[in-house]
């Protein structure tokens, strides 16, 4: 029971802190003091207190969007091991389920965006669909590599002591290729620079933000929280690939996890502050490169004879 409660507490409490941390890093780069670290929590609380406004042209699809999206993301979160301990749920094939739960979350959001009938939301939805169809093969290639190392298509294999041995056979090149691919994916899937700018408010250039323009109140809070949670999950998976085996001591593991998440926030913030976003027609090249990185990593694994 303890590990489950810890897992849920981490999932429910920390994702907005990650977003706040990234905001702080960006503010530091820009020489500003920035919003308080806990600002995302205040935003969520404010939105939850508000009422929602629904356009008369929308149907239940629009209202279901944020809820389904949040529910799917939360279910996916139950599969990912966070601190040392195993994830609450784990079985052969949960890697694939994870990918498709994220896809379901996205589908609900796309359907809700199309349901509004707004041209900007349709544009955002079409872009999100196009880019995510390129990001998904890369994610599945990384998962294929994880499954190959662990010997089973499950997140559990990431924690297996046998997997640690396989990672050391594969050596740094494979790990860094896969981690590089995952980092690009973390940026692309979570609508961060260089793919999308989370702080832009010009409809013509928006991707993810354009899709959520019409949501308000608790619905918007759900979407913001689901977005933060997704970023948190990608950070956690990336940390697991870089440091596959837990130390065994809960305190040390927790410290390691917290330290990694801080570093992850720093990395994302640095990328966001130092890069400009790519021109829209260059984004597919970035995602194809991510696929290529993952397939090179997989090729190294195969060449080194990891099962």
């Amino acid at each position, binding site marked *: 029971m303890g590990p489950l409660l810890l897992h849920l507490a981490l999932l429910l409490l920390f994702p907005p802190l990650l977003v706040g941390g990234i905001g702080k890093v960006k503010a530091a780069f820009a020489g500003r003091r920035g919003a308080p670290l806990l600002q995302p929590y205040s935003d969520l609380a404010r939105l939850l207190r508000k009422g929602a406004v629904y356009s008369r042209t929308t149907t239940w699809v629009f209202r279901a969007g944020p809820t389904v999206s949040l529910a799917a993301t939360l279910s996916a979160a139950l599969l990912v091991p966070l601190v040392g301990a195993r994830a609450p749920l784990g079985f052969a094939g949960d890697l694939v389920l994870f990918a498709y739960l994220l896809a379901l979350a996205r589908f609900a959001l796309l359907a809700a965006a199309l349901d509004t009938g707004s041209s900007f939301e349709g544009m955002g939805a079409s872009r999100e669909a196009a880019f995510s169809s390129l990001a998904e093969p890369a994610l599945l290639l990384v998962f294929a590599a994880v499954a190959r190392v662990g010997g089973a298509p499950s997140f559990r294999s990431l924690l297996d002591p046998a997997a640690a041995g396989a990672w050391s056979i594969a*050596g*740094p*090149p494979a790990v*860094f*290729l896969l981690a590089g691919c995952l980092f690009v994916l973390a940026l692309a899937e979570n609508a961060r620079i260089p793919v999308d700018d989370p702080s832009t408010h010009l409809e013509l250039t928006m991707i993810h933000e354009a899709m959520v323009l019409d949501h308000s109140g608790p619905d918007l809070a759900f979407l913001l929280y689901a977005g933060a949670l997704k970023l948190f999950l990608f950070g956690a998976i990336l940390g697991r690939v870089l440091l596959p085996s837990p130390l065994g001591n809960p305190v040390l593991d927790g410290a390691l996890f917290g330290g990694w998440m801080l570093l992850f926030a720093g990395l994302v913030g640095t990328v966001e502050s130092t890069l400009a976003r790519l021109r829209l027609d260059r984004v*597919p*090249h970035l995602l*194809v*490169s991510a*696929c*290529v990185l993952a*397939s*090179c990593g997989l*090729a*190294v694994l*195969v*060449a*080194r004879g990891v099962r």
Partner: protein
Amino acid sequence: MRSLLDALLVLAVLFDFLLLGIGDLGASIRISAMQAATLAALPLLAREDGSLGHPILLFLGVLAVKVVLIPRLLFRAIRDASIRREMEPLIGYGLSLVLGGGLVLVSFALAARLPFPGPPPSDLLVPAAFSTVLIGLLLLVGRAKALAQVIGWLVVENGIFLFGLAFVHRTPMLVEMGILLDVFAAVFVMGIMLHHIHREFDRLDTRNLTALRDR
């Protein structure tokens, strides 16, 4: 030592992909120079016996020719011919990247099948060499501009240098220096050719060379 070697080899292949995905000529020249610099460090790591003299000389030679002289020559060619700085690819960037990924997989398959005289310094060396040569060839056929083709040719040469790395301790110094000199001479000749293409057609598109009639 071994993992540093591996990391540099992976870096060299990543530079290949950067070249496939980037459209700016100046950036491509810089990247091919960086790739050469990465490869130049490899003989220092790959040596088997204790002798340092030969690898250090090779390191300095490669650095001087491929990292300093050739990029300078190419940048001068860009300036003299006032070339527009984009590639005009015949094969689009996205497709090039996908093809490049396929070529890397082919190289891994090839490397697993080819018998190799003696163990190479790293099992990634031969795949990386094959990938670099094949991606260099892809750059050669996939870009219309003469200067971009020169860069593709330099990448092929980098790949051949990688192959040579497996035999560092067996090849006489003179041969390697001779190869470096050849590369330099070839780029020099290509510089002159670029000048002539530019004077004849006002553009550096090699497709012009296939037309027979006078303009």
